[in-house]
């Protein structure tokens, strides 16, 4: 099973993320799924979005399990606060997360305030993406062609 995003989906998601960054004064944000795949990102400089997604998905999944142990349905968000940079991780839906990275110039309350509607807007985009993926496979006429020949990976390759 697979799901996909086209240019329109990506533009919608980017618009939501840019608006969130603008309003909250956060530095960067990433949307990822529970497998750790990066669905969208804005504002990251040196950080690897794939590593951030893998770690963020792991942290949030573990937090959800902790919530279950405490009899909570879920903790809707997690905040890790540092001296210079902090991160807010919140659920977009059952399968996706929004990570917001912000510095000392941004306010946690403001980040939380704007992250919530951003997550809701993102949810509606992802709902459409998933509904479409259940109905169809690749776009009509599109064929994926596997490259043949030498092995994909090897020493020094």
């Amino acid at each position: 099973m697979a799901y996909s995003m086209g240019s329109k989906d990506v533009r919608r998601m980017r618009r939501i993320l840019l608006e969130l960054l603008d309003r909250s004064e956060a530095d960067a944000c990433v949307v990822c799924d529970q497998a750790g795949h990066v669905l969208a990102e804005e504002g990251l400089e040196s950080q690897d979005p794939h590593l951030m997604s893998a770690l963020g998905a792991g942290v949030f999944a573990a937090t959800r399990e902790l919530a279950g142990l405490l009899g909570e349905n879920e903790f809707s968000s997690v905040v890790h606060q540092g001296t210079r940079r902090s991160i807010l991780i919140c659920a977009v839906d059952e399968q996706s997360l929004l990570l917001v990275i912000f510095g000392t110039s941004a306010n946690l309350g403001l980040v939380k305030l704007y992250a919530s509607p951003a997550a809701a807007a993102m949810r509606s985009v992802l709902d459409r993406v998933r509904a479409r993926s259940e109905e169809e496979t690749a776009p009509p006429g599109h064929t994926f062609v596997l490259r043949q020949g030498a092995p994909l990976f090897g020493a020094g390759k």
Partner: protein
Amino acid sequence: MAFVNYESREIQLKIVYYGPALCGKTTNLQTIHRMVSDDSKGSLTSLATAQDRTLFFDFMPLVADAVEGFQTRFQMYTVPGQVMYNMTRRLVLRGVDGLVFVADSQWDKMPENVESFKNLEENLRLQSDDIEALPCVFQYNKRDLSNVAPRHYLDFLLNNRRVRRPAVEGVATEGRGVFETLNMIAKLVLLKFIREYSGKQVEDARLVLA
């Protein structure tokens, strides 16, 4: 679950190395990371204890030019092998597209291999996945040691199904079998993705893997 981004022309796929404690899962990723060229890999991140035992997972992205017109990104994970970390293994398995089961070939590790494989099947079932439907490669590791079970015995114990999965003999510390395993699972995952996602009938997998 594979993810395709048509805007950035990228396909993301998740491969998980599973197996009992100290069988060589992390060593596989470390060897790949050490030997593969810089432009194919991201950094290897290990969430480990002070004793270098995997606590949560190891993670490394690998990039390949495997599908025409798309960059293929394999997200490579290991799970912690120790029995007590089962919840963590379940979390790492979410959205998996392909599995490498690393078995410890030593005779005295057979019960642990079997237990770990049963645990894998159970954890997949809990997330509504079926091992029969997922690409899977066995790696019989530590073949350089003196007290190892013969390959056919490992096949009998772990790979004894109607459709046998590919199995590779390895010495992960020396790199033996590591890339063979990696290339095999990468190809199987890609073949499944293409077959299911684009509805394209792919030639017999054995021909492509040859």
